[in-house]
């Protein structure tokens, strides 16, 4: 009997287990570059996550519509993380080996990024975290697989202070001012704090920290405090419903919206559209791009993807801020592959390790970008083995009650301020993990 029972149990287990892994691997042999897509289309952060995911997937579809990356078609698969770290890790594990191996992961969650930072080096899969993730991972010598392309939270914080300084008529005028940071109480929200405190010491302004608990729908007390303390500016570092709630509370406590400045994750349509007039005058940083419905790449997406009925999301959201962020993120990944092909063979499927080389040697100049349809959307990016960020251009846009409009010139983060902090934090990380940073020689390999 024991045998039979055992056999039964074992075979039943085997069926369940194999069905969990098996199915799609069969298709893997085709010559396709596999892009896993970690998304969150449900849960508290879905309104924001969905737009990003749509942009990401649409761009991959666009590349395929245009013939792939030098003829290599892209395959992709979505996995729902619900913005939860453990589910993100499960998705990562599930997708990393699929369809011939994942090209690059973009988790769109700082928490998941922290967890994957430990795993990516083992699996040799690069991690692109455009505009989020660990700020010190800019240092490619230590964080060899992380790519916080286009900007980190520290860049955001530094530029935010630059912008406020400019509005005040010079950073010297910041002395004695009070700047409140209303932030999402998570690694994401805490990232800017060290930079703000550092700058506060330098310029002599006071930083007031006001954490908001997940998911951010309860902010009455926070805004009462703001009303009491009357900070000169409020930096909003929220995500999802926290942003619109903050704006509503600002409206109902009468805090002037034009004294509020959001990070680029707090400056998209879902954050303001329902507050509409109430959010008028509110500004947010941009990760270079804003809402770009008129850009060439968006037109291409509409023509080549949506016109054929293959669009991922609603057509009228194409070109919105977070959509563009997703699209740009996908583009960066694709360009990493393209660059890698230059070295390892055009028209071939690249491994994660090869793509890392591509991402480390990314050099998108304005001409290339313009030709890809990104004219006016973004500025050149050039990465290196030691600089995994590539550029730190930031603009500010302002909500006029019905749409976002750019309201500032280009800023660039002050490397003199950030570089030492990045080096310090990354070397602390290297010490903890007993990592030996890469030397310039190793980079050349």
């Amino acid at each position, binding site marked *: 009997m024991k045998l039979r029972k055992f056999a039964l149990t074992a075979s039943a287990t085997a069926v369940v287990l194999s069905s969990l892994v098996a199915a799609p691997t069969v298709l893997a042999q085709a010559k396709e570059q596999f892009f896993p897509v970690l998304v969150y*289309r*449900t*849960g*508290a952060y*879905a*309104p924001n996550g*969905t737009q990003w995911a749509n942009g990401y997937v649409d761009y991959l579809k666009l590349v395929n519509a245009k013939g792939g990356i030098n003829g290599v078609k892209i395959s992709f698969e979505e996995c729902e993380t619900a913005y939860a770290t453990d589910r993100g890790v499960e998705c990562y594990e599930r997708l990393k080996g699929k369809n011939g191996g994942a090209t690059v992961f973009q988790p769109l969650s700082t928490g998941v990024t922290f967890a994957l930072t430990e795993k990516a080096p083992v699996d040799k899969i690069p991690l692109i975290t455009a505009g989020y993730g660990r700020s010190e991972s800019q240092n490619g010598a230590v964080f060899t697989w992380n790519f916080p392309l286009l900007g980190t939270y520290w860049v955001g914080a530094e530029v935010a202070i630059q912008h406020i300084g400019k509005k005040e008529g010079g950073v010297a005028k910041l002395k004695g001012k009070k700047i409140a940071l209303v932030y999402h*109480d998570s690694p994401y929200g805490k990232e800017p704090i060290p930079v703000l405190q550092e700058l506060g010491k330098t310029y002599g302004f006071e930083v007031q*920290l*006001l*954490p*908001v*608990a997940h*998911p*951010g*729908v*309860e902010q*009455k*007390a*926070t805004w*009462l*405090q703001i*009303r*009491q303390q009357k900070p000169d500016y409020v930096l909003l570092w929220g995500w*999802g*419903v926290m942003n*619109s*709630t903050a704006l*509503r509370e600002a*409206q*109902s*406590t*009468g805090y002037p919206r034009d004294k509020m400045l959001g990070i680029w994750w707090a400056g998209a349509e*879902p954050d303001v559209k*329902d507050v509409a007039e*109430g959010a008028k005058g509110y500004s947010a940083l941009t990760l270079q791009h804003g809402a770009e419905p008129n850009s060439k790449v968006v037109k291409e997406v509409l023509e080549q993807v949506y016109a054929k009925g293959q669009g991922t999301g609603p057509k009228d959201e194409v070109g919105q801020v977070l959509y563009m962020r997703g699209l740009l993120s996908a583009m960066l990944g694709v360009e990493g592959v393209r660059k890698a092909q230059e070295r390892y063979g055009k028209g071939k499927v690249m491994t994660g390790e090869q793509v890392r080389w591509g991402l480390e040697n990314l050099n998108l100049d304005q001409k290339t970008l313009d030709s890809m349809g990104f004219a006016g959307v973004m500025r050149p990016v050039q990465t290196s083995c030691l600089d995994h960020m590539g550029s730190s251009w930031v603009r500010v846009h302002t909500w006029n009650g019905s749409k976002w409009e750019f309201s500032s010139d280009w800023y660039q983060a002050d490397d003199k301020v950030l570089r030492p902090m990045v080096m310090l934090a990354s070397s602390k990380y290297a010490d903890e993990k007993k990592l030996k940073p890469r030397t310039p020689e190793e980079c050349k390999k």
Partner: protein
Amino acid sequence: MGFFLETLIGGLMAGMLYSLVALGFVLIFKASGVFNFAQGAMVLFAALAMARFAVWIPDWLGIGNPALANTLAFLAAGALMFVVAWLIERLVLRHLVNQEGATLLMATLGIAYVLEGVGTSLFGSDIYKIDVGMPKEPVMILEGSFEGGLLINKEDFVAALIAAVLVGLLALFFQKTATGRALRAVADDHQAAQSIGIPLNRIWVIVWCVAGVVALVAGVIWGSKLGVQFSLATVALRGLPVVILGGLTSIPGAIIGGLIIGVGEKLSEVYLGPMIGGGIEIWFAYQLALVFLLFRPQGLFGEKIIDRV
């Protein structure tokens, strides 16, 4: 002083909304002994329905008048909540009569998941707007008495008023109508109520319907304040300390408890928060409830439990 009053008023108004959520808990617990964890999901579901119907109904019927559209949407959402209540009784509760409290609690957690799933599949998981014309801008009063005046949030004020009216209506319903009396009888003793011919199943449907309407009103108010999206379901967690404080079986308890929790958490966040890092209001509400519990295990107005051997 002005600021203290502002905080106090803000807390009272937030508390009134908590009472509204707590009321949903109390209604159902009183009549059926079910601790309804799905109350938050019901709020979400109702608000989603309301928000979407307010857009769909004008499309279907070609109605231009927003007030009329809102009214119709409210009625449609209300009807939908009745259906939900009926289904819950039919498919779930009927089969769990006389089970332990813990089992019923788990069942409502299951209901919560189903409602969240069905709600977001039917109505979408984007962020939606309920615009019932709530005033958004604040007003200042007593500017002569306090420096800077007292800022009153009109939206909160209106919301608190609506909540207060609803609470009043429910109290009347329970005291004055035959159905209300039957509900109270059921609450006091299931078997006795059944033996004098009160149909338990119907009573349960009614009480879940009432809770559905309460959820709808809460959903409209919160949805209009915050936008309708997934996080609305978490308002249930804000209502829990309230019922614990007020007592699971007491309607006045839900009201007073809501006010105490509302004021307590706002004052603590504003005055205590900055000293210890902020963001304390959620756990403070729970700790406050817990401290009360240690002195009065049945809550402020709950019925005393005596062990019989």
